């Protein structure tokens, strides 16, 4: 996917080619050429607008997946959040996987592997994915979340205060401005496990709201 801004529509633009000779005026003098703007037709298309998946009314009985991009402590904080969420709502943590092929590895700077994407869609109803705590991993976490939403799986992007604005800007650029985003303190990597668990536990209400309402109440 190549996020880009479409150029302004070429209203009134003419195709390239030789200009016809100017029509003579009634006085016999050639008329001045009108100004014609020719736009290069080689720009990339803009993002295809997307919409959030239908939000469930309740998480009870639903299956939660954790999609881990391998960033330090991402799995720790997201798995804890999923477990806490499950305990609160009656959902189950059905899958915890890295995003690389067969879920065996993860590169945060590339999209989720197709086989893992298919498995998440098949085995889960809602998804927690991240961590979006660097530029590149934020870009691809947002990308993955939008693809999951398109596939009918509400997906929460776990980001941090430092990348909150970048995640929002990327979401808009990628065609779904209102992605579900859970903002945690920065950094996730390098923070001790008890603190991460505290952050995750404190996020349960926001996760419920994000999954069931599409936003933080």
């Amino acid at each position, binding site marked *: 996917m190549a996020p*880009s801004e479409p150029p302004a529509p070429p209203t009134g633009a003419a195709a390239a080619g030789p200009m016809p000779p100017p029509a003579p005026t009634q006085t016999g003098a050639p008329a001045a050429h009108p100004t014609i703007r020719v736009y290069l037709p080689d720009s990339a298309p803009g993002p295809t607008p997307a919409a959030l998946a239908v939000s469930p009314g309740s998480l009870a009985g639903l299956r939660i997946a954790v999609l881990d991009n391998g960033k330090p402590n991402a799995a720790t904080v997201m798995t804890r959040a999923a477990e806490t969420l499950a305990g609160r709502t009656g959902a189950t943590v059905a899958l915890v996987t890295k995003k690389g092929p067969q879920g065996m590895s993860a590169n945060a700077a590339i999209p989720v592997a197709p086989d893992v994407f298919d498995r998440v869609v098949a085995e889960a109803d809602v998804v927690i994915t991240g961590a979006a705590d*660097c*530029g*590149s991993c934020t870009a691809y976490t947002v990308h993955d979340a939008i693809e999951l939403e398109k596939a009918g799986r509400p997906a929460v992007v776990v980001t941090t205060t*430092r990348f909150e604005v970048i995640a929002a800007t990327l979401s808009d650029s990628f065609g779904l401005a209102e992605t579900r985003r859970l903002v945690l303190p920065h950094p996730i990597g390098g923070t001790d496990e008890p603190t991460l668990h505290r952050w995750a536990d404190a996020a349960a209400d926001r996760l419920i709201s994000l999954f069931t309402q599409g936003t933080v109440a």
Partner: protein
Amino acid sequence: MIDITPVRQMLQADGVDAELIGSDDAVGTARLRLVIDDAECAECVMPRPFLEALALKLLRETNPGLTAVYIEDPREQ
């Protein structure tokens, strides 16, 4: 002179920076250079196409005539 502060702030979240190396008001373009000399994680910085799209989006807010941003990325050299 285009103020690229919003782009710099975005990049500084990853410990890198950018500088303006040229602009053409008539065409509506700006050229930036990515400065990643002290980056701990060059891979953490978004790929150039993403950066260019985001930089355009950010800079258009104060420069509505801007149509393209080009970024020199030392990772590609």
